[in-house]
């Protein structure tokens, strides 16, 4: 196999159909970029579910030192005492609706908060005693009625600042992510179809413009693989071009939308990191290659008789 020969064939082919090559790269990039965004959202949702959603449905926030002034109605007794906290925990554990209780001390809550709000200037002014300790509760059946029942039982008890329905807080975020996933995957599916058709057509044009060469190759007994390889590689190069542009798109989605818009507005949860962006791109590479090479092979079967 003469690598130099194959490579010169590839670039001659790509240059000859420059407009089609650009069309393939752009449509493959949009298709893969949308796929990447959808993947990122799936990672995001599963990360949030791992962290919050599957564990707790209700958080019982306990009074802090400062709450006596901030929430005078519920925290009139000042900071929650150890006795109160133990009593609440025992009571919650014994509640038939409750499956499990995870206590979180102020120090733990502060560490958690700092971790999630990393980079935000607010962290500098927050001290551990401002962050409430809490009892995170997982219900046996997290229906709205059960959550309401739990709230009415514990809201107003001594030392309880607020009983918060975690599900309701997180709902808009989950809604946003699932909406993004659905719309991005819809666009991805349409664009993948478009990209496939474009690749098939490009390879067909390429095969037609080089029918003289391939005809001779066939006659002198070049192997099928050798005849087809330049066309397949052409598809692969265009596909990789698409992946590269898509990677830029996914990265800017993370940089501009997640880091600049979403993260500052929803400080109570963490967002996917660059490791997940890298993973997404690593998934896009084989997908893009497979798409391009597969479509090329399909096209060659039809338009390049060997």
């Amino acid at each position, binding site marked *: 196999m*003469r690598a130099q020969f194959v490579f010169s064939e590839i670039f001659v082919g790509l240059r000859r159909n420059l407009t089609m090559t650009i069309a393939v790269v752009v449509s493959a990039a949009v298709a893969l970029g949308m796929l990447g965004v959808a993947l990122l959202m799936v990672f995001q949702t599963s990360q949030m579910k791992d962290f919050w959603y599957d564990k707790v449905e209700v958080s019982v926030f306990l009074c802090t030192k400062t709450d006596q002034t901030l929430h005078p109605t519920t925290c009139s007794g000042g900071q929650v005492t150890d006795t109160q906290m133990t009593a609440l925990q025992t009571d919650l554990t014994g509640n038939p609706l409750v499956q499990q209780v995870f206590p979180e001390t102020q120090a733990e809550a502060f560490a958690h908060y700092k971790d999630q709000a990393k980079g935000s200037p607010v962290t500098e002014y927050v001290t551990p005693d401002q962050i409430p300790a809490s009892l995170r509760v997982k219900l046996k059946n997290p229906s709205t009625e059960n959550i309401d029942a739990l709230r009415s039982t514990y809201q107003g008890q001594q030392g309880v600042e607020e009983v918060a329905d975690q599900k309701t807080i997180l709902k808009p975020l989950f809604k946003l992510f699932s909406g993004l996933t659905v719309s991005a995957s819809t666009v991805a599916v349409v664009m993948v179809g478009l990209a496939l058709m474009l690749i098939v057509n490009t390879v067909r044009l390429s095969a037609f413009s080089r029918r003289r060469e391939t005809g*001779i190759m066939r006659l002198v007994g070049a192997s099928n693989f050798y005849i087809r390889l330049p066309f397949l590689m052409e598809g692969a190069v265009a596909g990789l071009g698409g992946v590269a542009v898509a990677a830029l798109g996914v990265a800017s989605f993370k940089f501009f939308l997640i880091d600049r818009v979403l993260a500052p507005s929803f400080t109570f949860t963490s967002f996917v990191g660059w490791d997940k962006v890298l993973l997404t791109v690593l998934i896009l590479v084989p997908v893009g290659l497979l798409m391009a090479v597969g479509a090329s092979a399909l096209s060659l079967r039809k338009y390049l008789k060997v």
Partner: protein
Amino acid sequence: MIRFDQVSKTYPNQNRPALRDISLEIERGEFVFVIGSSGSGKSTFMRLILREERPSTGRVYVAGKDLSKLSNWKIPQLRRQIGTVFQDFRLLPNKTVEQNVAFALEVIGKSRPTIGKAVPEVLDLVGLGGKGGRFPNELSGGEQQRVAIARAFVNRPMVLIADEPTGNLDPETSVGIMKLLDRINRAGTTVVMVTHDQAIVNQMRRRVLELDGGNLVRDQSRGVYGYVR
């Protein structure tokens, strides 16, 4: 070298067969003319040897191999043993003479030293020594056909198939091409040549196969063009 065993070929959606019950044998080292009017089945005959088509019934053997049992991925191996020359030369216009001939070796994966040795040799053989750097459009028709023959022969095939190689050339030039094919034949290569050129057939006095409407109507050694009707 080439054997047809009761071969018929009917193309899909056609009632009349392109070839009807052809049986013949071409020995190693023979020089054979295939003649017949347009539509007589000459092209089908050639395509069957190259395994571009499969017979509807019967068997075709080339170099001892039954082509109907040849799997698709072995076809290139078969074609490496058959050189092909056409009326329209089929050279690559953007490659020089040398590159055109070398192309045939490159695409079957021959090494650079082998190519560097074989190409000048074969160009000398066809009488184009010193013209390796020219482009096809700088050559006369006869010279272009010599390049095509060089390309077909550079891999030293056992069989050379020529489809009206002189069809585009004037009689004088044709004689030169025929001398070249004769020389290749005398070196041991089987030559099968389709032609309409009466003068050449009458002059060469080689075996003549005549096809008419898909039937083999004449198989004559040392034949002439003639009209058997």
